[in-house]
């Protein structure tokens, strides 16, 4: 907590994020309507925001506010699981490759290349066809197909960091590799990892929506912010009932924003280099 209070913005962001997480946990208490309740009546379909429906209704007369509240469950689970999977795999692979170098590096980097050049779409179709994944499955799939960027970035950072004097010093002092990696290398890469992780969360929320289109993601009647946004991508809907697209978009935006501010503060706390510059907001 001390880390966060350093920075009012990050503190506010943390509170907002907590509220969002709270909404996910206590959805039934916060939602005003049954998010799945379809009302096929002209006076219920595509209504603008009102006291009855805070965020309006969609083209099947469902309450958008309630759908956003419930949709946060899917979206957050997918986003965070995907992010953690990707960050864990990527960091592990990148650090090992960058630090040990040599044949290990070559093998791991070729693996990254292979994963990068595989047709992800097919990968997803097959796994989806075989396992019929739920939202958790999609999250892990997204993580499994999205770690390569982090791996390469971490490797690059580790490569240049390990030439730095403090690593050489640590090595000269006979520190174990594990200690050097965890105590010297990772804290210095942490900033970049946090940036990536933040982007990964936003990316996962959005990719999930695009992937649903291919029949691999969250399918009705399940829904997430991403699928709500995707359903609203219709030109006509966008024009006549923009709230169907604006509110799920806003939910994603606010979450991403909060994560980034928190990430920025975390990084300040973590990364010794930026500490005394008073750097606060941003990645």
């Amino acid at each position, binding site marked *: 907590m001390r880390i966060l209070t350093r920075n009012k913005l990050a503190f506010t962001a943390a509170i907002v994020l907590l509220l969002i997480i709270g909404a996910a946990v206590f959805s039934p208490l916060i939602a005003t309507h049954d998010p799945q309740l379809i009302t096929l009546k002209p006076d219920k379909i595509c209504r603008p925001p009102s006291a009855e429906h805070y965020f309006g209704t969609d083209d099947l007369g469902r309450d958008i506010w309630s759908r956003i509240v419930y949709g946060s469950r899917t979206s957050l689970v997918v986003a965070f699981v995907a992010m953690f999977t990707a960050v864990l795999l990527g960091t592990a692979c990148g650090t090992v490759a960058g630090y040990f170098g040599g044949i290990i590096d070559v093998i791991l980097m070729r693996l990254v290349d292979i994963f990068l050049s595989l047709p992800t779409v097919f990968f997803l179709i097959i796994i989806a066809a075989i396992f019929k994944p739920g939202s958790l499955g999609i999250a892990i799939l997204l993580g499994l197909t999205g770690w390569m960027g982090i791996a390469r970035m971490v490797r690059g950072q580790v490569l240049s960091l390990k030439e730095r004097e403090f690593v050489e010093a640590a090595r000269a002092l006979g520190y174990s590799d594990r200690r050097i990696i965890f105590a010297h290398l990772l804290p210095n890469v942490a900033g970049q990892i946090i940036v990536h992780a933040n982007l990964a969360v936003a990316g996962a929320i959005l990719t999930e929506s695009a992937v649903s289109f291919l029949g691999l993601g969250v399918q009705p009647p399940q829904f997430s912010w991403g699928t709500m946004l995707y359903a609203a991508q219709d030109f006509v809907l966008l024009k006549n009932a923009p709230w169907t697209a604006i509110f799920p978009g806003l939910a994603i935006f606010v979450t991403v924003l909060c994560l980034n501010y928190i990430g920025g503060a975390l990084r300040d706390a973590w990364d010794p280099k930026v*500490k005394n510059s008073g*750097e606060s907001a941003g990645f």
Partner: protein
Amino acid sequence: MPEILLNVKNLRTVFLTSNSRITAVDGIDITIGKGEIVGLLGESGCGKTAVALSLMKLITPDEGAISADSMQFKGRELLLCSEEEMCRIRGKEMAIIFQEPMAYLNPAFTVGEQIAEAILVHSPMKKKEAWEKAVDLLKLVQIPGAVNCAAAFPHQLSGGMQQRVLIAMALACSPELLIADEPTTALDVTVQARIMELFRRLQQERGMSVLLITHDLALVAGIASQVYVMFAGMIMEKANTREILSEPLHPYTRELLLSLCYLEKQEQRPENLKSVKNISGIQPGCRFHRRCSGAMTICSKTVPPLVDFGRRSVRCWLYGKGVG
């Protein structure tokens, strides 16, 4: 007293961090004459580096702020100089050598490029000429194989070589004032001696003034005419070298002298801006009183004034009756 080159009155440097202000330099006066070598002596974290940066106005508004009653350099008031004017002064009239050479060399350029750049900023010259001059400078600072060295990247050089590259870079435009911040920490004793010799030669031949900032009294003793002893952001004692060595007034100076006698090898503590933080949360009273063997009651209550004895001055309750 030779012609005055730099005259600083009541310099204060405050660093800003995300949650506090740290006064790294707390009202010091420094005077450097033309062609004079002046030592600034103090242990790690006492604000020596902050002084060096402040003199060149190298502290950005993000990092902190400097203030002074006056900062006259060659009769010009540096405080009133715009950033543009400072750019013209930096490197040409006033140059600086940093310690921790690896960190102060840009890893992306060859050292030759970096030295040549320092030359090109201030004189219209062809790149090739500048490069040749850079090689000459490397020779000047006793780098073996200067031509190859110029084409090397910093990480390909040893710490000592890097240090000499930084020195070469500072000397590139024959500055009138060289601020040398622990210039020889990374060097072995023979090279150190040669560098000092070089400083002396440049002083004699070109009339270059040097502000030698170090924790090493021995180094100062060998070369400087005047010595300022600094502790926790304040000047504790100022005198010419002989007087300091023969008759140190301030208890801190005495401590330094003792350590010079007993320690064969100086501990090479890395010193940089961050350690300045130690000063934050200063207690009232003399900065040194906690470590002082002869501390009196007053020492913990009021900061002693700098008592001027004409040619020398000292900040200690032992010597003057200040206010209160």
